[in-house]
């Protein structure tokens, strides 16, 4: 995705080679680095997932030892959440927000560089923890106490990695808030901003609100481990359930941090390929704000099985179910945008429509999990695994692919291959469902998650899921080929690369020059 060649830098006295990337303050360079980083982490987390699925292909223990299996499930979650999905969205924000609002760069360009370069050391700490005595943390990605208080030094490395990635996220979020609020071109009022900018603005507020909460939680785990405190140690007067409350006060808004920018990307793509303006733009803004506010009042729905008074269960159950209202508004708005539109199904649109289809299924299983008596049955089963993969893979990841195919012409100057893009979509869509749909049945039948072995009656659906997982994993290499091919050549992309694309980003040439909007455009 190196859209800008060193020749184009001529006259800027910018360093070239590795130093260009180390010292860059350019939002496009930094956006590219975020995306390359997140793709590497995506492949790393993917390898962990495939090892998990290889072990679960048959009952019994074949491939890995149980201790290592637990490390894999934990690290798969941490790597995908903090290393792949979140940085990928920040990469999109870096590349696209200044282009969309007519700004010349992000507000704090040097802090932007630092935000990114904190991530590789964090990733090295996290991945490197596999190789320390005792291996990586195996407490689950939620790092629940007391397990996390008992782990080996891999846990400490994970805690430091989370601290560093949290600092990176907070700085990135501050940068996005200040850029959106202060650097819009003349005439670009808040309510004229593309929806992607709105969803990221609200996401950035969520990040600033909850990343310190996570940092606090893991710091308390750290002091419990090494400095004699007893926040989560019942023997010392602490309470392990308090860890769960603090973690999920971060964890639930985190779910929306990972999905709101996806809503933004899909809301950019659907109007382009439906050749109609987004239906209910204002409703979308209001619904996003509403989801963000409500996300702070639902955290204990992750803890129904932990034990809670009936009043508490009812409160969190009702509050959770009410989130379906603004989310439903969004889905209806996307469908209404397509209604009677002149639809065409180029690769980005396929991914966006696929997103709506599968994400909605994940949303509905979320509603089922929200019902406390049902949740107590399916807690910690594969039903929950199926639910959150429908939301995070079919939601966040599919939207990321949609956005990548949509903006690749702007990033590289070449149109992505439709044949490869469509092959990638159909393989991913089919294999995704082969992998995760059977998990609903497994969960309802009682198969627990995070266990390397299982009873014989679960064998067939597990074999199916493992075959699907390898198909899905290998399908992602098609994306790699498509992107590399697009960078190296292909059909030249016009400034407005898609026929009906609207927005300031399509007014600059493709590939976008190293510096854009040095003179702010005026929006009528």
């Amino acid at each position, binding site marked *: 995705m190196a859209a800008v060649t060193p020749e184009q830098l001529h006259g800027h006295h910018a360093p070239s080679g590795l130093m260009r990337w180390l010292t860059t303050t350019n939002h496009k360079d930094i956006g590219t680095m975020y995306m390359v980083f997140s793709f590497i982490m995506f492949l790393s987390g993917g390898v962990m997932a495939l090892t998990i699925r290889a072990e679960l292909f048959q009952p019994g223990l074949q491939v890995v030892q149980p201790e290592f299996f637990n490390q894999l499930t934990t690290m798969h979650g941490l790597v995908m959440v903090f290393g792949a999905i979140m940085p990928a969205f920040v990469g999109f924000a870096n590349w696209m927000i200044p282009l969309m609002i007519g700004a010349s760069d992000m507000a704090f360009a040097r802090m932007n560089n630092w935000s990114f370069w904190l991530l590789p050391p964090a990733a090295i700490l996290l991945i490197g923890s596999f190789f320390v005595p005792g291996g990586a943390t195996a407490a689950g990605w939620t790092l629940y106490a007391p397990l996390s208080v008992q782990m080996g030094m891999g846990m400490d490395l994970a805690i430091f990695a989370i601290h560093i990635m949290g600092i990176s996220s907070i700085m990135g979020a501050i940068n996005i808030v200040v850029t959106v609020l202060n650097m819009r071109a003349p005439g670009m009022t*808040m309510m004229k901003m593309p929806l992607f900018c709105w969803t990221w603005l609200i996401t950035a507020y969520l990040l600033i609100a909850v990343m310190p909460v996570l940092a606090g939680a893991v710091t308390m785990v750290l002091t419990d481990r090494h400095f004699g405190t007893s926040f989560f140690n019942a023997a010392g007067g602490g309470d392990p359930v308090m860890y769960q409350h603090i973690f999920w006060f971060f964890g639930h808004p985190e779910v929306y941090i990972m999905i709101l920018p996806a809503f933004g990307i899909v809301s950019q793509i659907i109007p382009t390929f439906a050749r109609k303006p987004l239906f*209910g733009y204002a409703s979308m803004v*209001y*619904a996003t*704000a509403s989801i963000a506010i409500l996300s702070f*009042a639902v955290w204990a729905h992750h803890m129904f099985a932990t034990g809670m008074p009936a*009043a508490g269960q009812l409160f969190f159950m009702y509050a959770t179910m009410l989130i379906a209202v*603004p989310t439903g508004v969004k889905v209806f708005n996307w469908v209404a945008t397509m209604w009677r539109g002149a639809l065409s199904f180029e690769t980005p649109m396929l991914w966006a429509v696929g997103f709506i289809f599968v994400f909605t299924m994940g949303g509905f299983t979320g509603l089922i999990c929200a019902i406390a008596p049902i949740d107590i049955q399916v807690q910690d089963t594969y039903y929950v695994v199926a639910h959150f993969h429908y939301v995070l893979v079919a939601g966040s990841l599919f939207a990321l692919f949609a956005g990548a195919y949509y903006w690749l012409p702007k990033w590289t100057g070449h149109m992505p291959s439709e044949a490869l893009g469509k092959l990638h979509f159909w393989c991913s869509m089919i294999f995704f469902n082969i992998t995760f749909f059977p998990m609903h049945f497994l969960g309802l039948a009682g198969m627990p998650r995070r266990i390397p072995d299982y009873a014989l009656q679960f064998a067939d659906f597990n074999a199916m899921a493992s075959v699907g997982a390898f198909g899905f994993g290998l399908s992602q290499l098609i994306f790699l080929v498509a992107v590399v091919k697009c960078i190296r050549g292909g059909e030249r992309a016009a400034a407005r690369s898609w026929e009906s694309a609207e927005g300031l980003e399509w007014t600059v040439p493709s590939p976008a020059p190293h510096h854009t909007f040095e003179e702010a455009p005026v929006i009528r």
Partner: protein
Amino acid sequence: MTEAPRRAGFLATMRAVLWSFFGVRKRQGYIDDAGSLDPLAVVVAGVLAGAIFVVVLVLIVQWIVGAAGL
């Protein structure tokens, strides 16, 4: 053209925020909001409405729990 935009009052701000909880807004209402709302007031109203939402939900739950004798 020189006329300063009218500032929305407390009730108008609350109304916009409450619509946002539902996630839907009439086009004319949105146009009025865009012209008159003060962002700071919207944040204050949003937090206030969030608190009211929680209190109302707690009251409903208390009522149900009381009625069921739990």
